[in-house]
């Protein structure tokens, strides 16, 4: 759309003459905030758009002496911070991290020194506050070099606690974090909350291949027969569901109790265990030996793949380790995919009585 001269004037008057706008916010959550916090744990699409505008926000009635807290523009990050600041008058400086949380954005550099320095300048922070201290969440540290920010802006960074619920204690403690406040945890609830997104993601990926397989399974001389399709596809659906539940739910829940440290192996062993259980439960007793072999390979390999993909969501895995696992895991998954396809073909042929 072409802007008319009048439009450009309007744009100018709304953004450029009056300095950066300070937005107001409050610490309490409304129903929409609670709803959003749940929905972004289920829908990736929603989560990727769950954002607030970057910039400076005032919480309560902050004076020039009020503390400045920095966060990302993922709305859940912002919401947790303002909730943790309950009862305080403070400034919140929101960086543009493209809607990604503090830790992930710090790892990718968007929650970084450059963006912080730019934002301190564009929001004219030095004119808003009379002091030279800003509080950055500790998990932002992989992206931010405190000494460089000090050199470039004069602002001294104090790394605050990891969890926003510790902020009040941190302030009472004269801006000092205790060792517990700076240690990342991975509790049962922290692990559980991640499972729905993982399940939704893999189910979405599996639907089309499953439909194709179902159609092939239903193929008869007379055309595609629904009854045949149902009989032959059901074991595949069960195996697929078992793999997803094992890799995306069972694995994160059991994580602290698994002796093996490799994520790919953790998933593989859990998958094998579940395969054996299903086998001996008689679930697949009407399935040919090829079909049964297929369930073993599918459940073990897919569960391993899903568990391995969980590394990025954990505060346990590291880059060098994932690289090491990758060298064995990826060829294994490719091999398993080929094996599953072959076994599916043999399964179909054998069920037709041709083998």
């Amino acid at each position, binding site marked *: 759309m072409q802007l008319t001269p009048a439009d450009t004037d309007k744009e100018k008057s709304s953004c450029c003459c009056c300095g950066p706008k300070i937005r107001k916010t409050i610490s309490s959550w409304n129903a929409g905030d609670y709803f959003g916090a749940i929905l972004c744990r289920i829908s*990736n*699409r929603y989560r*990727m758009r769950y954002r607030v505008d970057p910039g400076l926000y005032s919480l309560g009635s902050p004076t020039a002496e009020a503390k400045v807290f920095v966060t990302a523009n993922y709305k859940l990050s912002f919401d947790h911070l303002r909730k943790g600041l309950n009862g305080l008058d403070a400034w919140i400086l929101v960086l543009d*991290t*493209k*809607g*990604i*949380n503090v*830790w*992930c*954005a*710090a*790892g*990718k550099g*968007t929650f970084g020194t450059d963006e912080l320095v730019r934002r301190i300048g564009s929001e004219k922070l030095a004119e808003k506050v009379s002091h030279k201290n800003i509080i950055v969440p*500790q*998990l932002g*540290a*992989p*992206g*931010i*070099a*405190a*000494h460089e920010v000090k050199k470039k802006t004069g602002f001294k960074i104090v*790394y605050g606690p*990891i969890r926003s619920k510790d902020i009040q204690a941190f302030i009472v403690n004269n801006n000092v*974090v205790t*060792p517990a406040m*700076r*240690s*990342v945890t*991975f509790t049962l609830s922290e692990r559980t909350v991640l499972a729905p*997104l993982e399940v*939704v*993601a893999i189910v*979405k*990926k599996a639907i089309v291949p499953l439909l194709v397989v179902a159609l092939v399974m239903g193929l008869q001389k007379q055309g595609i027969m629904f009854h045949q399709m149902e009989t032959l596809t059901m074991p595949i659906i069960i195996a697929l569901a078992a793999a997803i539940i094992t890799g995306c739910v069972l694995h994160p829940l059991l*994580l602290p109790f698994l002796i093996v*440290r490799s*994520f790919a192996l953790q998933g593989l062993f859990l998958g094998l265990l579940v395969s054996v259980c299903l086998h001996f439960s008689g679930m697949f007793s009407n399935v040919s030996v090829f079909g049964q072999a297929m369930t073993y390979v599918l459940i073990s390999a897919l569960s391993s793949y899903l568990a*391995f*993909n*969980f*590394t*990025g*969501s954990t*505060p*346990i*895995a*590291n*880059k*060098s*380790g*994932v*690289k*090491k*696992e*990758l060298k064995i*895991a*990826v060829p294994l998954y490719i091999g398993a995919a080929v094996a599953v396809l072959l076994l599916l073909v043999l399964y179909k042929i054998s069920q037709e009585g041709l083998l």
Partner: protein
Amino acid sequence: MKYLHDVATIAISHDKCTGCGMCIDVCPRNVIAMKDKKTFVNDKDACLECGACAKNCAFDAITGDFGVGCATAMINGLLRFGNPDKGTCDCDGTSGATGCC
């Protein structure tokens, strides 16, 4: 909960370290400890290689292959570019694909 034994690449130069303790403050896994006013890697297997310590060391005393230990991103990189370091998941905020964090 610890990851693979002895793979983390973090190293601290004894000569460059001034003992300021900044790395200890930013480490989320208590990997680094202080002894005789110098820091050292005390719990290597707990290291996430997030790079917070190196980034915040004003004396360049800490080295390592830092980054995100995310299999989603690395598998992507390996399959698309033949290099695990080049892959991304949706944490870079550009794609709407499914992913980790």
